[in-house]
């Protein structure tokens, strides 16, 4: 049985991850508010938050393959990475609503109902909400097997988020191509391991 001090150490490292995880948002907000984010600070901050959401998503999805392929067990950090993904997607959306669209409702409603890339992003955010709400120990215990089923939504969210990013840009940057490749690889790994399991049974 793990000792109390090792439990505390483990908790501390998770809280540290949260603290570090929110630093980019705070730093980006500070830069934008003090006019240090270039000519179009609003769009820059909006994209910056979206990119951080993608980065945390990649890290969260990398935990399982890291363990299964490389024997590196970082499972204790997975929840924090998932929750950080949710917060960054939410920040990204809030910046779009306020700083970018200045709460112009008719245009926002038109965007959300008519424009495929925004629709995909919106669905991804909506699907993230139940995952964030069930990220507590209590919910995990309560939902049992269903928790795992519910949280498989992350694969749908990943595809939606990826399509949102790719469709939202005129021409993909090198960074976007790398993220796309990483996410396709991480999703492909699941498809590969499921099909292998299925063949085994």
């Amino acid at each position, binding site marked *: 049985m793990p000792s109390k001090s090792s439990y505390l150490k483990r908790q501390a490292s998770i809280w540290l991850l949260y603290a570090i995880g929110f630093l980019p948002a705070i730093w980006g907000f500070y830069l934008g508010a003090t006019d240090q984010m270039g000519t179009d600070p609003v769009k820059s901050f909006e994209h910056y938050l979206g990119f951080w959401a993608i980065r945390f998503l990649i890290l969260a999805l990398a935990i399982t393959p890291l363990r299964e392929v490389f024997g590196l067990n970082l499972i204790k950090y997975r929840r924090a990475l998932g929750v950080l993904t949710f917060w960054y997607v939410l920040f990204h959306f809030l910046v779009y609503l306020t700083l970018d669209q200045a709460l112009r409702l008719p245009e926002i409603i038109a965007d959300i109902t008519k424009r495929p*890339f925004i629709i995909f992003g919106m669905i991804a955010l909506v699907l993230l909400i139940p995952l964030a709400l069930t990220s507590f120990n209590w919910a995990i215990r309560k939902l049992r097997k269903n928790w795992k089923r519910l949280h498989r939504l992350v694969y749908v969210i990943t595809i939606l988020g990826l399509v949102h990013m790719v469709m939202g840009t005129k021409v993909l940057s090198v960074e976007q191509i790398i993220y796309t490749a990483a996410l396709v690889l991480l999703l492909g790994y699941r498809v590969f391991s499921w099909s292998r399991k299925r063949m085994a049974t």
Partner: protein
Amino acid sequence: MPSYRPPRIPSSEITPKKFWLNRRQIIGAGAAGLVATGAQAAPLESVKSGYTLDDKPTPFKDVTNFNNFYEFGVQKTDPAKNSGDFNPRPWTIEIDGLVQTPKTVDFDELLASETIEERVYRMRCVEAWSMVIPWNGFPLSALLSKVEPLGSAKYVAFETVVRPEEMPGQRGFFQPLDWPYVEGLRLDEAMHPLTLMAVGVYGETLPNQNGAPIRLVVPWKYGFKGIKSVVKITLTEKQPPSTWNLRAPSEYGFYANVNPEVDHPRWSQASERIIGGSGGFFGGANRKDTLMFNGYADEVASLYDGMDLKKNF
């Protein structure tokens, strides 16, 4: 004609003094090394024109550090960073096609022969952001009159220079567009007095990242129509191809007139973010309604009488 509105603000207000005084320094900092070419930042003799605006001009540093010029990279900050090797001199523009006297015009001779006007224009990008830019240039019609277009000429085609050795975006593995960048206008649009060949910005010769030494500015159309670093102009009978239309015909039309009622398939064109000089997130109003023909409807709407602007977007 109501199009010639007298200037309502003194020139000292058109150019914020701190940027005016610092302009060489800013160019030096923003595009280190460029000054060595000698073609950079030479002051231009300009006359004031009636084409001006009450809107607050976008600071020089934003006009010259936030550019879509894929020949130098796809990020907005790339052109300022990556255009240091570009040498816009000597420069010639070949004008041919359906004209009486085809010509190859030397840029320096052209500069000496034309009266350079300062015009403050709104610039509306198809990506739904906008700037206000004090250009220096002369009407395209003055250039076209030198070659005497034939009666059969209906369109004007433009071409940007191809120099992979000087333009990093044109070489290497990742090429976002087919080169050369091409654009076109209907002849009546090209002859319109608002249509400008810009050779400078903020009273100095164009920095490389803004399309040195000479570029097109069509203020009632989306910015991508304003083809940069022009080397060839051809008068044609048929509608010429245009780069973004070739790449995504459903998103970018040949006309590309600013129109708040015709949305881009991926975003609304009803309003625009005013960028540059905003002082960060909370520096002031940063979104406004987009105006029909970018506010130039009185001058240009008649060009499109009876035309379905939703179809011909």
